[in-house]
């Protein structure tokens, strides 16, 4: 026990003397989490998970423009109103194809008048015999960036189409109310007696009869307002940083093996397991600090960058346990690398390649659900995936400790296996 403590203190001292090494360990994941989240925020915008800005140019300045604005106010489209006195269609086109905006909407001059006129003519078609007259639709112009993703394009188009359909339907119903009133009057009834009379009809129409109730996953514990990329990226990149500590751990072992230190240590009455434990405990401290730093960046720096904050509202103990076991897995891997490789160059090349690969497979860079089927199945072999799944279960899905025990067990097993393998190797490599 005393020897483990001595080994841990020594490791911490060595770390404290290696300021640059420590700085890299903390800066690398910190920079990555900020950059990647900022980049991905843009991706979220493109895939419609965030409000899309829509240029709105009303050359008509009539009722149609006002109704459309009102309809779009409740959608995920964020209207940017352009002044019709200063801009024209060419400007919109330039802004959209130039990539500054993804979508532009133009209400042509005279659109309101034509729309009102056509609506009025809808029911002036003589008697019920013969084919209904063809109507001319009043067009609203839509400009879309050709580079836009298909998903966003159809999302925006659907919302605009929905708004136009609603406006059209309301106009038709208002018209129908009038026609009904006239017909009833002709039949001798008092128009006021009809529930469908006049202005009442569109108001009735707006009453909901069917709706879509949305649920978040199974538990529903977390509201839709929670911004997912932040809750996903913060633990993901913290894990990435934690697994990267495997390289300095391997380096510290190789430094010992390539000097007389390892020989001296093997000649002392102390088991390699004691030395491994010392390293694991010391570097676990580093990993905890890394996670804390990344979490603090998520919580306090993100808001000032215009991102929503990272929050750990539930199961702090389960989260801590996940951090601890992920760190142990990372340390075990580092110790194994230090004994399996013969030079620091080997260990750092193999280490960084394998950690980046495990991060990619594990869903740190691209979420697992967005991967092809084959890769999704492959992702379960990555220790980073086990850690990440546990974090997502806790932070996104609102599960409790019992739901992540399998992933935690895998991390622990990984640590045990790597340390035992290293122990075997230490026997050979004395």
């Amino acid at each position, binding site marked *: 026990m*005393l*020897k483990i403590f*001595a*080994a841990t*203190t*020594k490791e911490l*001292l*060595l770390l404290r*003397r*290696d300021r640059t090494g420590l700085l890299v360990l903390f800066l690398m994941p910190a920079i990555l989490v900020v950059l990647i989240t900022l980049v991905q925020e843009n991706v979220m915008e493109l895939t419609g998970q965030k409000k899309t800005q829509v240029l709105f140019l009303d050359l008509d300045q009539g009722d149609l423009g006002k109704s459309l604005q009102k309809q779009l106010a409740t959608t995920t489209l964020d209207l940017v109103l352009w002044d019709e006195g200063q801009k024209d269609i060419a400007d919109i086109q330039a802004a959209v194809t130039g990539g500054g905006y993804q979508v532009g909407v133009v209400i042509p001059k005279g659109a309101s008048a034509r729309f009102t006129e056509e609506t009025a003519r809808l029911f002036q078609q003589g008697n019920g015999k013969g084919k209904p007259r063809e109507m001319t639709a009043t067009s609203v112009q839509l400009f879309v960036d050709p580079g836009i993703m298909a998903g966003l394009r159809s999302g925006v188009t659907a919302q605009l189409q929905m708004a136009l359909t609603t406006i059209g339907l309301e106009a038709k119903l208002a018209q129908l109310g009038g026609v009904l009133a006239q017909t009833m009057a002709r039949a001798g009834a008092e128009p006021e007696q009809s529930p469908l009379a006049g202005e009442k009809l569109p108001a009735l129409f707006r009453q909901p009869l069917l709706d879509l109730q949305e649920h978040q996953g199974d538990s529903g514990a977390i509201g839709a307002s929670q911004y997912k990329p932040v809750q996903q990226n913060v633990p993901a990149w913290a894990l990435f940083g934690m697994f990267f500590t495997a390289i300095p751990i391997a380096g510290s072992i190789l430094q010992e093996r390539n*000097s*007389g*230190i*390892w*020989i*001296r*240590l*093997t*000649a*002392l*009455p*102390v088991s390699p397991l004691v030395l491994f434990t010392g390293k694991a405990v010391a570097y676990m401290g580093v990993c905890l600090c890394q996670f804390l730093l990344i979490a603090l960046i998520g919580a306090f720096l993100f808001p000032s960058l215009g991102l929503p904050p990272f929050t750990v509202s539930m199961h702090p103990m389960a989260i801590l346990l996940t951090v601890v076991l992920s760190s142990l897995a990372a340390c075990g891997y580092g110790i194994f690398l230090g004994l399996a490789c013969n030079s620091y160059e080997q260990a750092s090349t193999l280490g960084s390649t394998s950690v980046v690969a495990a991060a990619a497979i594990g869903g740190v860079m691209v979420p697992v659900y967005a991967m092809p089927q084959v890769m999704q199945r492959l992702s379960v072999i990555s220790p980073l995936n086990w850690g990440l799944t546990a974090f997502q279960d806790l932070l996104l899905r609102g599960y409790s400790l019992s739901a992540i025990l399998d992933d935690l067990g895998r991390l622990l097993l990984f640590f045990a296996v790597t340390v035992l393998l290293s122990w075997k190797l230490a026997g050979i490599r*004395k």
Partner: protein
Amino acid sequence: MGQTAFMKPGNPYLPEPGPDCVVSARSLVKHYKNNDRPALNDFTLDVQQGEFFGLLGPNGAGKTTAISILTGLFPADSGSVRIRGMSFQEKEHEIKRILGLVPQDIGLYDTLTARENLNFFGKLCGISGRKLGERIQQGLEFARLTEHARHPVATFSTGMKRRLNLAVGLLNEPQLLVLDEPCVGIDAQSRHLIHEQLKEINRQGTTILYTTHYIEEAQELCSRIGIIDNGRLVEQGSPVALLQQSGRGNLEELFLHLTGKELRDT
């Protein structure tokens, strides 16, 4: 000396190690992977209690390999090793407790200070509390590094590092001190100091096994010298006996006669 002072390699009758025998190695053979030549080939050695035994040999003769097997760093392919009658298979921990090893490559943490190095290795030896403080202080004085106790080892000269390397090997007050070329690449002052200190330690009763490729060093220090070449002991005896028996003027002539004049570049 009761034992045969002069023993031919492959001697068919090997005397049983007596009660005073600290190190006894019998017919050690060691092949490294990726190396056809055996590093040790029928290596047999006895070191008695209180001896200052020098293992003298050219580069690549197998000195470090022999020392590694004798201190239990790794096992030989065949043959047997006993330290005070104990084998590493059965009593590894007990042997390690009475053993002090000074490795050929300096075994110190560069970024730690002299005191921190002594403190860490002392704790791993199982020393603690006031005793540890005393041993560290003694170690610093022994290495003449009291003034530099708080300086990182990286700032030390080779002589200072070698002195500290030795001091760390002495932390547990070993009964058997094994040194692998401890004076390579250092100035005359440091070498002189180390030599004097080792003689003193030996006088106080510590058995010493010392490897070197410097003939004068072996001659000056050792009560008995074994000449090793190509993984086997080719000659052994006290410096005086070796000269007498060989009938040559000095040890260097004997050494070159035994090991040949071919260059050793391994």
